[in-house]
């Protein structure tokens, strides 16, 4: 099959960018979206030009590196998959596909389709961890955890931190990401000691990084490659206001 790509090209953060059209020909419908970009890049490289820069790593949907807005949707048209697991069979032969980088003030553009998502790492550093020594693997059921809590914690922990939620949100809000990271620890016994400091610290960092507020539109949940639910945002709100009302200390390194 053949498609025409309309790709955002931008040399660096400060240089102006523009859309450039590329004809991608003789493609297999079973190629992944990234394989298609590889093929196009080969042709571009052979012609002596700079290939399209795009983020990728594991190419099996678990690392969260691949990104891109494909025809207006983060990770393309298919539900609950990342760009790496989007295949050309999801597109029509002869279609023009528009590829843009994730757009958010908190995700500054590095080059072409690559944005800097370090803001997410700094949010994790503000509380997305357990300070106690985990030790060796405990005996099964040594620490009782309700089944629904382990299930919910696993669902939250499925977040790969790709940033599609931010890219889809009209306010570039990171609430879905932060709520998943807060919840997966706050739901488990090991996370209880630092529960309030965690939620206060991570929300504060989220605001500082320049992400917007939540309008509950649900667009984040719809594009999430891991199907993270808005229910985690409600849970994070509960944890946050509980911590606020009880006057828990701020999460700072000094107070640890």
């Amino acid at each position, binding site marked *: 099959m053949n498609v025409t790509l*309309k790709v*955002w090209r931008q040399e660096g953060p400060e240089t102006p960018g523009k*859309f450039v059209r590329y004809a991608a020909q003789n493609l297999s419908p079973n190629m992944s979206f990234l394989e298609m970009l590889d093929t196009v890049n080969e042709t571009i490289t052979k012609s002596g030009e700079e290939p399209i820069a795009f983020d990728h790593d594991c190419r099996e949907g678990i690392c969260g590196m691949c990104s891109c*807005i494909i*025809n*207006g*949707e983060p990770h393309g048209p298919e539900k609950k998959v990342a760009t790496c697991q989007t295949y050309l069979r999801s597109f029509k032969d002869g279609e023009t596909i*528009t590829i*843009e980088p994730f*757009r*958010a*003030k*908190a995700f500054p553009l590095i080059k072409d389709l690559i944005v800097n998502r370090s803001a997410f790492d700094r949010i994790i550093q503000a509380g997305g961890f357990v300070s106690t020594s985990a030790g060796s693997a405990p005996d099964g059921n040594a620490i009782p955890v309700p089944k629904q809590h382990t299930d*919910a914690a696993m669902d939250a922990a499925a977040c790969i931190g790709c940033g599609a939620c931010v890219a*889809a949100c*009209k*306010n*570039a*809000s990171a609430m879905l990401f932060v709520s998943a990271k807060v919840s997966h620890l706050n739901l488990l016994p090991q996370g209880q000691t630092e529960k309030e400091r965690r939620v*206060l610290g991570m*929300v*504060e960092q*989220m*605001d500082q990084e*320049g*992400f*917007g*507020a*939540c*309008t*509950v*539109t*649900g*667009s984040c*949940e*719809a*594009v999430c490659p891991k199907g993270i*639910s*808005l*229910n985690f*945002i*409600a*849970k*994070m*709100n*509960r*944890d*946050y*206001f509980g*911590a*606020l*009302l009880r*006057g*828990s*200390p*701020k999460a700072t390194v000094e107070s640890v």
Partner: protein
Amino acid sequence: MNLLSGLFNSSLGKKFLMALTGVALVMFVVVHMVGNLQFFLGREVLNHYAHVLKSNPEILWPSRIGLLSCVIIHITMAIWLTIENRTKRLTGYAVQDAGAASLASRTMIYSGTIIGAFIVYHLLHYTVLLQSINLTGRDFSVFRDVHGQPDVYRMMIIGFSNSAVSGFYLLGVGLLCFHLSHGIWAMLQTLGLVNETYRTTIERASVIGAGLLFIGYASIPVTILTGLVK
């Protein structure tokens, strides 16, 4: 962390204030509709209800001040959050896909603005009784029933018999209910009252509740305009 600074300085805190005032305003909207529907029980019942409301200034004024405070906080937070949110994406997308976001959820600030204008008109119309804006040329403040009490029933019939006034009223309550179709469930979500078990129910109840409110509010001007009650 200080509670007040947490409420005003964090994005979640501002949302929390919006949601809390939203709860108070939704409760008012429901009570106000139930009060209005006594129109269908006739002049005697409605005028008595209005008299009971207005004859207790010790209750009336604190309620009015409380409601006004809620409106002010709700609007302030809405404007503040909207301005902040608009700065979070400096370069827009060439291809936009609204995706799962409903029209109501994407237009809350616009529906809210028109509702705000409607509330001002509505208060001048039926509370301040400003004659120049009721478009009927009548002075509502002189209407009295057989007991010498303000004749609210007659005021409603004459007030809504003007189709432009009724049209703006229907637009106002229509947008209010459109706002609430997203607002009710969004405020419960912000307050953390949504979970997996109740989410679908809450989302549906939000839309159905907003629909019922619209039917309740719209029934009065529609009945009057179509001449079913004279």
